[in-house]
């Protein structure tokens, strides 16, 4: 239940806690009417100049165009984005004027220079114009034309505005109408729209993000997603409650382009992965497996967790438990789906879980904010919320039959463009552990590096790498000198701009392939090569990668006729580890204040640092 009185009290008292409470209520809201009341309170807070504390991201310029009226949808989107701390600046097109707004480069849409465009084509344009009984080839040809024209609009937006495009697809009918015959022809709205939606999704280029109305409406129940009266009266795209779901999805897509995904799923054990308490009930006493309904539910939950691991999510255990007894459950219980080698960290002890999670984050070189912690026990969840607030938490509650659905709906582990590296991550982190053992065995760093047999590959940005480049740039927090985030569209632009020198670095060694581990974006300004962006995966710290990357930066700078190299450190809550990085690399501090530290180096004095990494250059690909 939403406590409006509490919100009003916080607002009246001018309390900054108002915003957090408002965000929480907004997430809980189940209907548009609730959301509108919350939006009024938000506007009242603005009128009183009540400022949101903590990180609020830069305003995103979002344009909304399409064949519907966007009042009140625009307001709902504005509200949800703002309460999630990603406020947007909106521009809304005229009703059903999207084709000319997009194609005419002098239109208000183009003038607005949006970073993202929400395009909602009307369903009246997605209907077969011929007869139900027409030849299927004719029907397919027409559906194909619709898909092609939608893709062309998205392409135009991306090419002329370099904007990310969010496009809604089409809701399916929710009335019996043709009965069973609807599935026997592509000419029915039902089949025709399914075909268009399917092909739109499969053929969408990386800059096009489909806001799946077919899915959202089916999730809501098709009949409740529509509202004919609202269409006749004010050209609404669906029922008021569907508007709320659309706004949430659009916000999720927008934020997803800018916020790094979660990487680690940290799990409790007793009554989370199995029923009962293994230290008390013993191996034979815990509920897991196909002998009881509860046991089946826990087993299904474990299966789902394994599927997350296969997608590239790292699994960890944080349990208040006797270590040996907890481990025995995985080693000896025949019904257990998860096994010890599925986990990259296993902490079963009596320390507070918040501390265990901190320790894991340090061991894995990951930020706490890449963790999701799952527990059935509200008290444990509360401890983590209080003492490790960066960690996202899921309180599973008492019924294991709901656990899979809760993880499936948590939205923390959604792949964007799946890269092969994702699936390899568990193996990479495990070989990192082995590498640390190797480090114990050899006595000095030089021989350790030699023993790794490292090979590095330096490549200019290439089109196929763009999704992975964007991923690394947008999820790196610690080894990230400037924390400048970039969308795939922006990277494509940089790649083609001669003022920029961009490259990526891949590393492999005898334990495995680390994939893409470092990215540099250099910008040539007269005789100075300035490092706009330098990110590196923390998994390869102290491996000489930074030396080779700097060697390459200098090589490119000299090729471009530069005489100086400049680097900047912009501090964030997370990148303290690179505060002195440029200093360590031989650059001199030239300016320092609270917001930045600037470094510079003359190139004539620079000597490349020899390393134990065998470097290979990949030639630029012809465009």
């Amino acid at each position, binding site marked *: 239940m939403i406590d409006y009185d509490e919100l009003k009290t916080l607002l009246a008292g001018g309390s900054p806690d108002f915003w957090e409470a408002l965000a929480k209520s907004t997430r809980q809201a189940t209907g548009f009417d609730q959301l509108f009341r919350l939006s*009024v309170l938000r506007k009242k807070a603005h009128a009183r100049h009540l400022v949101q504390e903590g990180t609020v991201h830069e305003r995103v310029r979002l344009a909304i165009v399409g064949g519907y009226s966007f009042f*009140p949808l625009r307001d709902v989107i504005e509200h949800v984005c703002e309460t999630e701390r990603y406020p947007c600046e909106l521009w809304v097109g005229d009703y059903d004027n999207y084709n000319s707004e997009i194609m005419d480069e002098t239109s208000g849409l183009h003038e607005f220079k949006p970073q993202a465009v929400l395009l909602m084509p009307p369903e009246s344009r997605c209907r077969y114009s011929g007869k139900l009984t027409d030849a299927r080839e004719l029907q397919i040809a027409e559906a194909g034309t619709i898909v092609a024209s939608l893709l062309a609009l998205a392409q135009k937006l991306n090419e002329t505005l370099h904007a990310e495009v969010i496009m809604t697809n089409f809701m399916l009918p929710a009335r019996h109408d043709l009965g069973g015959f609807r599935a026997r022809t592509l000419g029915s709205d039902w089949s025709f729209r399914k075909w268009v939606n399917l092909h739109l999704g499969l053929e969408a280029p990386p800059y096009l993000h489909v806001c799946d109305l077919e899915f959202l409406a089916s999730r809501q129940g098709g009949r409740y997603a529509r509202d004919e009266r609202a269409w006749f009266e004010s050209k609404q795209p669906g029922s008021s409650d569907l508007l709320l779901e659309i706004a949430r999805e659009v916000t999720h897509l927008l934020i997803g382009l800018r916020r790094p995904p979660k990487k680690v799923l940290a799990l409790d054990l007793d009554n989370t992965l199995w029923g009962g308490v293994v230290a008390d009930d013993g191996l034979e006493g815990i509920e897991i497996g196909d002998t009881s309904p509860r046991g089946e539910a826990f087993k299904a939950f474990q299966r789902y967790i394994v599927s997350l691991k296969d997608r590239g999510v790292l699994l960890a255990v944080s349990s208040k438990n006797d270590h040996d007894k907890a481990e025995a459950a995985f080693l000896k219980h025949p019904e257990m789906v998860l096994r010890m080698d599925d986990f990259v960290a296993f902490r079963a002890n009596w320390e507070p879980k918040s501390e265990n999670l901190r320790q894991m984050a340090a061991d894995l070189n990951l930020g706490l904010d890449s963790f999701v912690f799952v527990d059935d026990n509200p008290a444990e969840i509360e401890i983590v919320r209080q003492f490790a607030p960066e960690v996202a938490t899921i309180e599973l509650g008492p019924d294991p039959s709901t656990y899979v659905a809760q993880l499936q709906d948590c939205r923390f582990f959604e792949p964007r463009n799946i890269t092969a590296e994702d699936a390899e991550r568990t193996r990479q982190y495990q070989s990192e552990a082995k590498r640390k053992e190797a480090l114990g065995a050899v006595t000095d760093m030089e021989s350790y590096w030699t023993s790794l047999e490292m090979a590095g590959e330096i490549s200019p940005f290439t089109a196929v790498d763009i999704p992975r480049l964007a991923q690394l740039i947008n999820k790196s927090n610690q080894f990230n000198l400037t924390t400048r985030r970039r969308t795939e569209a922006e990277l494509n632009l940089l790649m083609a701009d001669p003022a920029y020198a961009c490259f990526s670095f891949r590393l492999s060694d005898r334990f495995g392939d680390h994939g893409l581990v470092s990215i540099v974006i250099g910008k040539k300004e007269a005789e100075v090569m300035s490092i706009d962006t330098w990110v590196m995966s923390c998994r390869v710290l102290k491996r000489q990668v930074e030396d080779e990357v700097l060697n390459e930066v200098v090589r490119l700078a000299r090729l471009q006729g530069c005489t100086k190299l400049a680097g900047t450190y912009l501090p964030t809550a997370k990148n303290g580890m690179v505060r002195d990085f440029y200093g360590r690399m031989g650059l001199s501090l030239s300016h320092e204040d609270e917001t930045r530290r600037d470094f510079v180096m003359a190139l004539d004095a620079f000597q490349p640092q020899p390393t134990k990494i065998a470097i290979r250059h990949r030639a630029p690909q012809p465009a």
Partner: protein
Amino acid sequence: VNQSEIIAKLQGIFDDLFLEPVVLTPALSAKDVPEWDSLTHISLLLAVEKSFGIRFRVGEVEATHNVGEFADLIGKRLREP
């Protein structure tokens, strides 16, 4: 329920939806209240339908000219079985 009882209940809904306080009278209309735009209007209808447990027919709210007529329409829908 008579018109004034309905307007009294409407007052509570308006208080939640408008930034500036609005005092409802039967003669008040949307054009008297700057905030009462199409966005607020849609939200207002939803809130009214929910809290009175009624459903308006297409176009009929648009045909009312002031709060009094709107309240009478609500009364009419409330009296339906």
